[in-house]
Every structure is written in C-alpha cells, then in structure tokens.
C-alpha cells in the first residue's frame, strides 16, 4: 500500500535539497543573463547577453582562460607525478611511520587555506615565483596532491594481488605487468585523481589570490576583480563561463568512473 503523506514528505525534502544546492547557481545565472532586476521582482525584467559582451570588452577573457587552463593542466601533471609513486608506496609496501606520512601529505588540506596561502606567498616573494604559471601550479599541487593520493591509495589497495600474480606467472616481467595489468586496472582511479587535481587548481581562489600577478590572472580571481569593480552581472557572466568546464568534468567523471570507485576500493571495476 502506498503511504501518501510519506511520499509527499519525501518529495518535498528532495525538492528542498535540490533547491538548497542549486539556488546560488540559479541566482548567478539570472544575474548573468538578466537585466533590470531590481526590488522585489522574482525574475529579471529583461533577458540579455550584454554582460558577456561587457566581460569580453573589459577583461582579457581568452588570456584568463589560457592562464587558468595552463595552470590547471600543469598542476594535474605534477600532482600525478608526485602522487602516483607516493600512493603506490603507501598502498603496497609496509612503510615505517605510515600514519605520519599520510598526515604530512594531507596537512595542506587540513589547515585553513588562507594560513597555508600566507606561508606560500611569503616564500614565493623571496624566490620570485609569484606571477608565474609554474609557481602557481606548484602551489596548487599542494592542494591537489592530497586528494590525488587519497584516491590513488584506495585504488592501489583495491588492486587484486592475485591478478598481479596471474600476470607474472603468464610471463609478464615487472614493466610488462605494470603496462598490461596494473595500469589498466587502476585507470579509473588515475582518471579520477587527474580530474580532482585539475578541479582543485581550476576552482582555487584563496591561494591564487595571494600569489597571482598581472600576467597570471585566473578565472576565479578575475571574477573577484570584476566584482570589486562593482559589476555584479559581469562577475556573474564570468562565473558562468567558469562553470562550464566544471560541469563538463562532472558529467565526464560520472560517465567514465563509477562514483563508488572514488569512495572505496576498485575491486571488480
């Protein structure tokens, strides 16, 4: 028997949750595509693309996009280079002081980002890494690597060692085993780690704000700058542009990697 009040309550709860998550997003989209939105009006009086035009005229959008992409890609590559061997060692070997090691890796994510950012900025001024793509990418690696390591550790821990034994008995040397067995089995986890790293850099604002310069403005920083200039709708337009790759990645991730693989092991992936 259907229990109608319960079904209704559930529908309201789900709708409320979706609204709670999406309302800020809806507001920004309305700001970006609307005009003459004043007072107590529910919706803007006018729909327009002019804020995107303004954004393009007042801001070097292409340059900002290129900066952002360069930094995010560089971060992704560096984060993988660092976290693949680290995660392999943590997952597959008996290491002394393993908890301390994991603590050190997670540290940059566990403290307030602004504290961490101040320290990074202090160092970067001395070594002239502010306002450089490589410098900002290096700083972002500190934020991206913890995520990547956590995902990769659970990936590598989930690798079935019997499959590795099977590969070895069937004739795979160490390199062949990595290429033919380990890598394909771990691929969903590696893709997830790469996406997380990319987004950690792409979405970052606080740390970037402390070390960016005129040549290295990223989209989140540009959004903030435009807001500072008093143009909420232009900031909304830039935010909307910022949103597109994030949503694409989210869709890609859900299609390529089963969500449970991000949370637990990869058994039977």
């Amino acid at each position: 028997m259907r229990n109608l009040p319960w079904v209704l309550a559930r529908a309201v709860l789900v709708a409320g949750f979706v609204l709670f998550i999406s309302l800020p997003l809806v507001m920004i989209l309305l700001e970006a595509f609307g005009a003459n939105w004043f007072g107590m009006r529910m919706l803007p009086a006018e729909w327009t693309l002019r804020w995107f035009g303004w954004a393009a005229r007042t801001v070097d959008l292409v340059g900002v996009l290129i900066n952002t992409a360069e930094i995010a890609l560089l971060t992704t590559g560096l984060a993988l280079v660092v976290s693949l061997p680290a995660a392999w060692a943590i997952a597959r070997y008996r290491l002394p002081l393993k908890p301390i090691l994991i603590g050190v890796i997670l540290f940059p994510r566990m403290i307030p980002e602004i504290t961490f950012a101040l320290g990074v900025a202090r160092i970067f001024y001395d070594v002239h890494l502010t306002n450089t793509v490589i410098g900002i990418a290096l700083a972002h690696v500190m934020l991206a690597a913890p995520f990547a390591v956590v995902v990769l550790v659970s990936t590598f821990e989930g690798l079935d060692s019997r499959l590795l034994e099977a590969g070895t008995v069937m004739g795979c040397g160490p390199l062949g085993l990595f290429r033919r067995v380990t890598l394909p089995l771990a691929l969903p986890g590696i893709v997830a780690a790469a996406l997380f790293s990319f987004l950690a850099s792409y979405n970052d604002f606080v740390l970037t704000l402390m070390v960016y310069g005129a040549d290295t403005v990223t989209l989140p920083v540009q959004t903030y700058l435009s807001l500072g200039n008093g143009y909420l709708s232009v900031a909304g337009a830039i935010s909307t542009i910022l949103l597109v790759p994030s949503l694409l990645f989210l869709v890609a991730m859900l299609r390529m990697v089963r969500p449970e693989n991000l949370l637990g092991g990869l058994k039977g992936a």
Partner: protein
Amino acid sequence: MSEPRLVLQHIDKHYGRLAVLSDISLTVPRGHFLSLLGPSGCGKTTLLRVITGTVTPDAGRVMVNGTDVTRVPAYRRNMGMVFQSFALFPHLTVADNVAFPLRVRALAREEQQKRVIEALRMVHLEALAERYPRELSGGQQQRVGLARAIVYRPTILLLDEPLSNLDASLREEMRLEISQVTRALEITAVYVTHDQREALALSDSIAVMKLGRIVQFGSPEAIYAAPVNDFIARFLGYANELPVVVGDGAARIEADGSTLHIPAPAPNGPATAFIHANAVVLETSGAPAPNRLACTVTDLAFMGDSVEYVLRHKAGLQLKARVPVGGAIHGRGAAIWAVLPPDKLIVVPRDAGPPSAG
C-alpha cells in the same frame, strides 16, 4: 630415458619462525598428474608457488626438465596456472583473457587467433569469446581460466583448488573437464586440493601433506587401501574409527577391552582401526561371528539408494553404517548387531603429531 618434468629436492620454506615447508622432495614424470592433498595450512599452495616461482624457497632445488630453475623469476618459467579465485582480468573479454599470455609472448596475430579459438573450443566456450568475465557464471569463468592456462602450452600446468569456488553441482562437471583437457594435451599437472575425492579421481599419484611435510606418497589406489596413519585415513573419508591397543597379533578395543580380529599383524601399541560405513554389516540375529558389536540405532537417514544408520555401541563408541536399500529398515532405538568383517578393517598407528623440533 628423458629427464622427469619436475623434480623438487629438499625444499624448505620458513615465514619467520614458522616452517611452512620442510624437506619436500618430489619427482613428477612427463605427462603425469600429481595432486598435493592436505588440510588448509599444510603448505600445499606455498609448494605450488615454489614451482611457479612466485615464492623462493629458503633451501632446496627446483628442477624442470633437468635444469635448475630455483633462481629463475616466475615470468621466465613458462608455467600455467589455474586459480581458485579464477583471477581473470576484468577489463578484458574472454578472448582477450585467453590471448593475454600469447600477447606477452608476442606471437603472430593469426597464430594467436588460431590458438585462442582452439583453447576456447577445448573448454566449449567459443560462443562466449566476446563476453566479459563478470557476465559469466563461476563454472564458465573457471573454464576460461583453464583455457588461458593451457593456450601457451606451459611446461607444467598448476591448479590451485580450482573447484572450491564452484557450486557443488558444477564441481564434477569441471573436474571431468580438467581431466579430459589434461589427458588430451598429455600435459604434466600439479593439482592442489583439500578434497580427497578430487585427488583420488584425477591423479596418477598423490602426495598427502600435513604441516609442511609429505606424510604419504603413492597412487590413489595404494593410498586409499593402505593409509599410513590415522590422519590420512580420516582425511580419506573413513567413516568409522575405533581406538585400539595392539598386542600379540590381536587388537583390543580400548573402550571395553573386547577383542577385535584384524586382517594382518599390526605393530604393537596404540593404534586406530578404520572401516568404511558401507563395509559394516547389520544383523538382527544369527550365530555369533567375529567382530560382532551389540549396538542401538540412534539415528537413520534415507539416502535414496541406501540407508545411513548412526549406531551406538554399549561401550559408548559411535558407528556409521550405510546399507543398500532392499532389506528391512531398522527404526530408532532398535537393538542390532554391527559386524565389522576383519578383511575390511585397516589398523594404522596413530600419527605422532607435529615434530617437536624445527
């Protein structure tokens, strides 16, 4: 005479202070099917890994075709292995799983295809070549495992409890499959199991293992007829055991001191007499006969072609008897004679247990 396919000489392996394998020596001729039979923890799987090369022994030598391979890494030994867990690659189709060892060996494409089809046909799976392992039943997955292990014509085929992850109904079918494939290819096989029926049915010879040692080695018939101690007799599934003391050519049942006639002289001292359930004869009357024990029926189960009785002897011994259907059925509580024919009894010394040193 050609060299034996596999010779193990005085293999020792310790994990910390635990001796997993102690002084194991074995010879397996070409085309021979050897089973390593023993309870879990007896070292049989470790011994298999010593042969594949994924475990290096602390002492001893592994000889394949007369060549010492003890220090040769596993991936250069050309061994084939069937795993208890199947160990199929989940990211590859059935055909790609079977082709995997051929790709590693960089065989020509046409040769690969030919051999994959051949191997899949051998295990009757050619129709499922494009499926993924997760789409197959356990029995089908293990047949893929078998095809993958023979497709590159390994020097020795090793099977690690290949049936124990299968449903009971599938085990016999898969066992026949393994038997047919290994005989057809005349491949040398080493088969690890804790199931004495599998070992008896498949093997040319059996090594019974306990606590890292080989306790008895011989043909299935010889081991079944004459187990060397009570551990092996129990392991081979003898249903009835009677603790006895042997002296002056006769055995006395420990429980009540009555005499048990035994077929052949046994060494003096404590021993155990064994008899199969289907060798026990039940009588309700008749002349006194040797080895006739007064019992009460405590339980019975109708098995279709036979009836299984659980009997209790007055001295407290419990006996099991399996009688073909046809005669009268004795109900619970019935008084009955259980006759143990002397020629069906075996009397073996009691296992000394683990050696105290080592």
